[in-house]
């Protein structure tokens, strides 16, 4: 591979990893847009590369989350029983689909992502209900200096949504944090901090379940994987250690508008109106 291309992917990876960690976006969507729109890589190969980036960033962030005991491993496992089959199914579906279908689905996912980023995360109104399965949990809130206890509401809806999130993740190559966090936070009423940490765990496993399918089909470009993975790792490191997580409403609205713009571009590409 040319040196310039290597450098370009590496630098964008650092940017996407850092921005992803700051915005809680994970970086998968940004890498995917970069590979398809800037580098014009065929969508199936772009999805495979993006999945690898997602695994790298989630594993980087995960080592911090797990250590801080925010992750609810029981809840993660219960939801994984549906997400993982979805992720495998999604990857197989994607590999039989023409590229422009995937681009159209991606465009729709971008609209959804824009809506989510316009909407503010629900803050801690915790409902304690009967916890028959034992998937509630607790964590220590550093800011409030208290232990927060919570339980999981509407498990069936959560499981079904998790299955869909898995399929979407396998088809368009995002880990699906942007779907999983709202499922846990809005539907199952898990506090946002526990949702984010638990989603991070699930995202890594979901992306890996899809990635292994692309990998064994030889769709993953190994040469490009190097700057892709290294860039994301460095970026995620910078993002999680050096930059503060931001909740700025202006930034979220800006991000939403950017996502809407790229959704429009992706629809044009899917429709064949955009060729270069």
């Amino acid at each position, binding site marked *: 591979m040319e040196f310039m291309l290597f450098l370009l992917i590496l630098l964008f990876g650092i940017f996407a990893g850092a921005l992803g960690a700051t915005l809680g976006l994970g970086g998968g969507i940004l890498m995917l847009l970069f590979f398809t729109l800037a580098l014009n890589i065929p969508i199936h190969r772009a999805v495979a590369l993006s999945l*690898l980036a997602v695994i790298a960033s989630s*594993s980087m962030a995960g*080592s911090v989350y797990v250590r801080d005991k925010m*992750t609810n491993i029981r809840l993660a496992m219960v939801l994984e029983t549906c997400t993982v089959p979805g992720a*495998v199914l999604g990857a197989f579906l994607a590999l039989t689909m023409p590229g422009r279908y995937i681009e159209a689905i991606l465009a729709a996912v971008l609209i959804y992502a824009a809506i989510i980023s316009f909407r503010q995360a629900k803050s801690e109104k915790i409902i304690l209900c009967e916890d028959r399965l034992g998937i509630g949990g607790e964590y220590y809130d550093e800011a409030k200096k208290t232990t927060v206890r919570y339980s999981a509401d509407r498990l069936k809806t959560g499981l079904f949504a998790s299955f869909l999130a898995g399929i979407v993740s396998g088809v368009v190559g995002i880990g699906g944090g942007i779907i999983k966090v709202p499922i846990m936070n809005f539907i199952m009423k898990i506090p946002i901090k526990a949702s984010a940490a638990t989603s991070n765990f699930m995202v890594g496993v979901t992306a890996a379940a899809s990635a*292994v*399918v692309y990998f*064994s089909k030889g769709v993953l470009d190994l*040469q490009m994987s190097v700057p892709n993975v290294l860039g994301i*790792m460095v970026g995620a490191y910078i993002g999680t250690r050096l930059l503060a997580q931001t909740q700025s409403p202006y930034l979220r609205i800006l991000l939403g508008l950017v996502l809407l713009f790229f959704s429009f571009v992706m629809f044009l590409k899917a429709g064949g109106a955009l060729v270069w």
Partner: protein
Amino acid sequence: MVSAETTISWVLRIGVLLSAITLIAGVSLGEPILWLGALILILTPFLRVFFAALYFLLHKDMRFFVITLYVILILVIGSLLKF
């Protein structure tokens, strides 16, 4: 005794670091090493699930042990399926 969280945290760090080193080495050593580096990265989250299973087993939490085994089973089937 080392807690489950600390162990998983280290597994993630070692997996990421090992795959980064292997990928960098692969640039000069060639495709098989690159392939190995990518594989290590993909297997890192799988290991996380594996350790979760171990954690539930050690705590005699059989219901969640079985749930985790089911997830591992799907992961393995997904890796081996051909169409």
